C-alpha cells in the first residue's frame, strides 16, 4: 500500500466528505437566496421537456442501484435469495437501462445548454465545472460497466469497491481494497468523490430541496408578519426586552 493509495482512497474521500457537509451548512446559512434549481425552462421548453425528466429519473435509478450495490453487503442479498448470478444480471440490465436514460437526457440537456442562446448565457462558470465532473463520473461509470460487465466476464466490485466504501463509513478505512481495482472503476470513484466536494458550491444543492414536506402540509400557508421572519437581523445589543425563554423562542422562530 503506497502513500498514494492512502491519499486517494482515505484522505481524499474524507476531505471531500468534510467539504460536502460543511459546505452545505455554510451555503445554507450564508446563501439561502442562491439556493435554487436555477431553472431555465422559461427560455426553452421543447428540449427540456424530454431531456430533464429523462436525466433526472435516470439518475434516480442510478442512485438506487448504487445504494444496493455499494451499501448492502453481498451476503445480505444472498440471505434473501439474490445470489451473485441474479445480482449480476439484474445490475447489468437495469444499470445499463438507467445509464442509457441518464446519458441520453444529459446529452439533450448539454446540447440545449450550448445551442440555445439565453440558456448558454445563463450558464455560470460553476455550472460548467460541475458539468465536467458530472459528465466524467457518468462516462467512467458507463465505460467500466460496458467494458467489464456487458462485454467482459464481469467484475465483482462487491468484493472490493463496496467493502472499501463501507470501511470508510465505519471509520476503519481499508485503502488496500481499492489498490487493485481496474482503472475505469478507480477513475469513476475519483471523479465522483471530486463531484461530492464540489456539490455544495453548485446548483446541485437543489437535490436537498426535494419538496417532501409538500405531502404533509395544508395547501394554504399562513405566516405572521412578526414571526421574526424579517430578513433584517436584529443588531447586537438591540434585541427587544424579553425573558431569556422568549428570546430563545424568538431566535428559533427567526431561524
Amino acid at each position, binding site marked *: 500500500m503506497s502513500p498514494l493509495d492512502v491519499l486517494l482512497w482515505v484522505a481524499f474521500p474524507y476531505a471531500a466528505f468534510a467539504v460536502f457537509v460543511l459546505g452545505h451548512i455554510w451555503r445554507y446559512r450564508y446563501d439561502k437566496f*442562491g439556493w435554487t434549481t436555477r431553472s431555465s425552462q*422559461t427560455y426553452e421548453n421543447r428540449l427540456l421537456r424530454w431531456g*430533464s425528466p429523462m*436525466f433526472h429519473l435516470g439518475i434516480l435509478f442510478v442512485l438506487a442501484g448504487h445504494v444496493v450495490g455499494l451499501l448492502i453487503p453481498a451476503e445480505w442479498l444472498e440471505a434473501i435469495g439474490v445470489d451473485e448470478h441474479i445480482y449480476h444480471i439484474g445490475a447489468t440490465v437495469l444499470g445499463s437501462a438507467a445509464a442509457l436514460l441518464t446519458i441520453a437526457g444529459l446529452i439533450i440537456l448539454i446540447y440545449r445548454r450550448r445551442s440555445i*442562446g439565453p440558456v448558454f448565457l*445563463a450558464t455560470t462558470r460553476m455550472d460548467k465545472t460541475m458539468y465536467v465532473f458530472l459528465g466524467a463520473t457518468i462516462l467512467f461509470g458507463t465505460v467500466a460497466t460496458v467494458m467489464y460487465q456487458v462485454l467482459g466476464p464481469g467484475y465483482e466490485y462487491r468484493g472490493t469497491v463496496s467493502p472499501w466504501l463501507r470501511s470508510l463509513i465505519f471509520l476503519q478505512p481499508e485503502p488496500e481494497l481499492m489498490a487493485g481495482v481496474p482503472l475505469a472503476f478507480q477513475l469513476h470513484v475519483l471523479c465522483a468523490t471530486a463531484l461530492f466536494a464540489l456539490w455544495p458550491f453548485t446548483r446541485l444543492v437543489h437535490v436537498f430541496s426535494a419538496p417532501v414536506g409538500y405531502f404533509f402540509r395544508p395547501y394554504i400557508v399562513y405566516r405572521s408578519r412578526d414571526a421574526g421572519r424579517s430578513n433584517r437581523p436584529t443588531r447586537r445589543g438591540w434585541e427587544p426586552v424579553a425573558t431569556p425563554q422568549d428570546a430563545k423562542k424568538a431566535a428559533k422562530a427567526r431561524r
Partner: protein
Amino acid sequence: MKVMAQMSMVMNLDKCIGCHTCSVTCKQAWTNRTGVEYVWFNNVETRPGIGYPRGYEDQEKWKGGWERTKRGRLKLKAGGRFSKIAHIFSNPKLPEIQDYYEPWTYEYDMLLNSPASANIPVAKPKSLLTGDDMAIKWSANWDDNLGGSQETASADPILQHMSEHVAMEFEQTFMFYLPRICEHCLNPSCVASCPSGAMYKRVEDGIVLVDQDACRGWRMCVSGCPYKKVYFNHKTGKAEKCTLCYPRLEVGLPTVCSETCVGRLRYLGLVLYDADRVAAAASVENEHDLLEAQRDVFLDPHDPAVIAAARAEGIPEDWIDAAQRSPIHKLIQEYRVALPLHPEYRTMPMVWYIPPLSPVVDVVADSGADGEDVRNLFAAIDKLRIPMEYLAGLFTAGDVDPVARSLKRLAAMRSYMRDVNLSETRNEHIAEAVDMTGAKIEEMYRLLAIAKYDDRYVIPTAHVEQARELEEIACSLDYEGGPGMGGAGPFGSSSGQPVPVAVENFHVLKNRQTADRPSTPGRVNLLNWDGNGTPPTGMFPPKSSE
C-alpha cells in the same frame, strides 16, 4: 368564526383612461432589475384583447386555479400534490418568456456617441436575453387601444365564448381598460401549488408573498396562478410577485400604483372575513353562485359579535376601526357595485372592479338620446347584450344580472346627481329604482366621483411595537451582514442574503442622484416618495435657468 383582516383593492373602471402610469411607476419601484425585465406586477390591458401574458384566461390551456370535483371538493386544476411532484422535472404548464414577450433595450450609445455622418444613426433593438438584434413583435400591451386587434382580439378567451360576428361588432361599440395586479386571493392557488411552502398569506393583512429565502424555483406557482401574476425571475431563479407595496402599507401609505393613479380610480381598505368559511364558499357547485358566496364570507365590521370575535383574534382596535371605515367594504357590501375578476377560478380574488358604465352612456348619447336620463340608460343596459355578456365573462362567471344591477346603480347615481346639480331636486324614485335611498346615492357619489384621498385610502398602519421589523422604517445604516451593501456574492448576482427593500431603494436612488449621467435616462424611483415635499430628482426636467 375565525375573523381575519384582508387588505384589498377596488378599481373603478369608468375612470381608467389607460395611461399606464400605474404600470410604469410600479415597474420603476419593483421590477426595473435584470431578470424581471419582462415582468409587470401591474399591467393595464385593453379589453377586448388577449391580455398579458397572451391568452392567460384560457384555463383549458394553462390549468390555473381550482376546480370542483364531482364529490364537491376543491382540487388544483393542474393536479394535486402527487401530480405536482411527478412533473417537477419539467413543469408542463409553464408559460415561456415568448408568451409574455422577449425583453429588449435599444442601442442608445449609437445615438449618443455617433460621429457626424450623412445618415441618421439608428438605435437598434437588442434582446435582453441574448444581446442579439431582434425584431420586436409583441410586448405587455401590444394591443393597446385595440391596436392590431382585428388580428389578435379573436384570440381573447372571453370573446371566444361569443361568436365571431359578435366580436367584430363589439370592437366598434365597446372598449375599456383593465388594470391588473395580484389578486391577493383568500384561497390562493399559487400558495397551494408551491412545493417548497415558500409562498404564504400574511396573517395580519392577507397579502400573498414569496419568501425569497425559501423559494427553490420549482415554478409551480406560476402555473398555479390563473391570473398569471406570479413571475419567474430568470436571473435569480426565484418567483416574484406583486407585494401590494407592503413596505408602504405598513406605514400607512397607499401602494405606488394607487398613489400615482391619474384617474384616482383605486381604493384601498380592509375587509374582515370568516376564514373558516372560505373553503366552503370556494366550492359551491354553480359558478354563478360564487360571487354571492364570496360576499357571504365577508363580515359586517359594525356587528358587535364580529367586533368581539375580531378582538378575540387579536385584531387591533384601530384595524377594526379602519375596517368600519373601509371604502372596500362600502363598494362591495353596501353599494354592491364592485365585482371580482373571474370568480370562476375559485381562488376568491380580493381585487374587485366597478364595471365601466361610460360605453353604455356613449351608445345612448351617440344615438341622439339623453345620455343622462335614467330610463334611457336602464333600457340601454337591458338591451346592450354584447358588452353585458363580455363584462359578465370577466366579472361574474357569465351571469349578466349582477353586472346589470351594478351598472344600473351607477346609472342611477349619474341621473340623480345630474338633477341635484341642475335643479336641486332630489328624485327619490330614481334611487328607489335601484333599491337605494337618495342619501345613500349621495354618499356613493362622494366616494366614487369626489373620491377624496382619505376616503379612497383607509390604511391602518402596522403597530409601533412591531416597527423594528418593518422594512420601510429601516435606515440603511443599521443593516449589516450579507454582500448586499456592495457588489455581488461569490455565486453571482443571485447569491447571498436578500437586501431589505428600503436599503435596495436607498442605493438605487443614491446611484441615480450621484451618477454623472443617468444610466437609464428619465427613470425615477417613486417608492420612497409619499407625495409630499420635493419630488424625486429627475421627475421633472431642470429649470432652464439652472
